Each structure stands twice: as structure tokens, then as C-alpha cells.
């Protein structure tokens, strides 16, 4: 989870959608990058676990509590899920992308994102990682 669509990219990175030859991100083919808030299914990771991404302009602590509250409400145990806050990316250009998103400059963010990765360059989801 994050307060920008970076959460979606990271989640897709976890499920292997990006990586190797497929790591080039076609921004136009990822409509979720335009969304200010979203809850999306990203697929399954290598261990068969379901991976979801959620982002919105919301304090990460409150978002985590909301998720935990829902699970408590429905008696879903902590063993059944894990919540990961996407950390700030180490890559400078990705930080610019995040900043643009946080400032509400979605067009600029996607424009930057389109130019952030490429063959031999930053592997967006991998470097962003999850903690």
C-alpha cells in the first residue's frame, strides 16, 4: 500500500508481471496509473500468494488500521494476510514520480514514469520493493 499508484506497480512487480524482458512499462496500458485511489488485484506471487495493491491519499497508519479492522470484524486471522507499506524508492527519478503523484500532477508522474525505466535502467517494482 502507498498513497500513490506506485503501490500498483510494486504489487505487479511482486507477481512477476514486470521483470526480465517484460520489465518495460507501457504507461498507456496501465490505466490504474491514472487513478487517485484504487484497490486492485495484482495476481499471485511465486509462492502462490494473492497480491493486492491499495492506494489513496490517506495516512498509511489509518489505512493499515482500516484493513486490520475489517479483518477483525470478519474474524480473519493475521496468518491469512500481511500488509506492507511501500517504502520510498531509492531511485531519484522514481522519487520524482512519487512527488508528482503526491502533488496531484498525475500527467507529469506518468510522463516521468514512462522515462524512468528501460533496458538496463531502473527496474521500477523491484527496486521499490516492499518491506
Amino acid at each position: 500500500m502507498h498513497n500513490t499508484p506506485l503501490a500498483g506497480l510494486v504489487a505487479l512487480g511482486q507477481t512477476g508481471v514486470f521483470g526480465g524482458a517484460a520489465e518495460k512499462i507501457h504507461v498507456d496500458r496501465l490505466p490504474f496509473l491514472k487513478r487517485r485511489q484504487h484497490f486492485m488485484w495484482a495476481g499471485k506471487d511465486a509462492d502462490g500468494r494473492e497480491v493486492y495493491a491499495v492506494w489513496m491519499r490517506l495516512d498509511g497508519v489509518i489505512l493499515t488500521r482500516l484493513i486490520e479492522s475489517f479483518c477483525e470484524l470478519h474474524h480473519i486471522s493475521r496468518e491469512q494476510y500481511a500488509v506492507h507499506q511501500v517504502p520510498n524508492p531509492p531511485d531519484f527519478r522514481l522519487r520524482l514520480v512519487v512527488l508528482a503523484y503526491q502533488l496531484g500532477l498525475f500527467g507529469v508522474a506518468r510522463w516521468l514514469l514512462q522515462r524512468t525505466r528501460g533496458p538496463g535502467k531502473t527496474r521500477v517494482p523491484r527496486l521499490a520493493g516492499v518491506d
Partner: protein
Amino acid sequence: MKIVYHCYGGTHSSVLAAAVHTRRLVPDRVPSPDELLALPLYDKQDGKDYGRIAAYGRDEAGNEIFVLGRRSYVQAPEMVFCGLRSAFKVAEPVKLVDTATTLNWQMKVGGYLSRGLGLKAIGRLIVTWGSHLAYPRVVSLVETIRKEVMSN
């Protein structure tokens, strides 16, 4: 069914609504300040409780009633809960009700003074005054919800 009343702090309008829904407060009589302050969670929750759901009891039909503080993120509970219901394939519906629509300036100012600044004496005076004035709106909202869930 689970019904969650939510507002900014989860401690004034949502608690009032939950209290009316569970009939801790009767709908046809405006409660006194002492009755309001004696309510569980009324003017008691603060920052460390934002995002946490608190159980408030059941109505006569067995529906479970909860309150939630979500700061100014009105859409957050709906979006997160909707996504998680789908993710965990939860069949039981959760009814989310935003009670901030019933707020007046007295409740906002009083709530901020009491919970935000810790000025309980003056804050509670103002927030109970505001609750007194807002009570008919709260009752109207709750009765609409009760009719809706009872008819399902």
C-alpha cells in the same frame, strides 16, 4: 448485518448515531449533556483510535453496530472494505454510514477543543450543545438506516 457509523473522530456524531441505533438513547427525547457524556466512547476517542472500529452493541434485529473515526477520508472505509470483501470473498455485507452530514459547527469546534486541544471543560460544553441541536438530524439518519436494514 454489520453497520458501521463513521465520522471524523469516531467519538461524537458516530457515537450518537450508534447510541440511537442501539436504543441507548431514545429517539423521541433529546438527551441531556450528562446523558451524552455518560455514553460509551462519547468524547473519548482520539488520534490513536483513528481507523479502528469499535463495537457498540446490537440492535433488536441482531445487527452489530460499530463506530469508526476516519479523519477527513470520507471515501476510505468504503473503498478499503469493498476491496477487502472481494479479496477475502466475504459474503456478509457491511453497511457504512457517514454521520458527518449531521454535524454542526458547535460539534466541530467543541470536538476540536476537547479532543484536539485537550480543553475538555469548554470543549465538552460546546460539543454537547451541538449534539443537542444536531440530535433530530442524527435520529432522522439512523431511522432511515434502521428502516433500510430491517426491510432487507
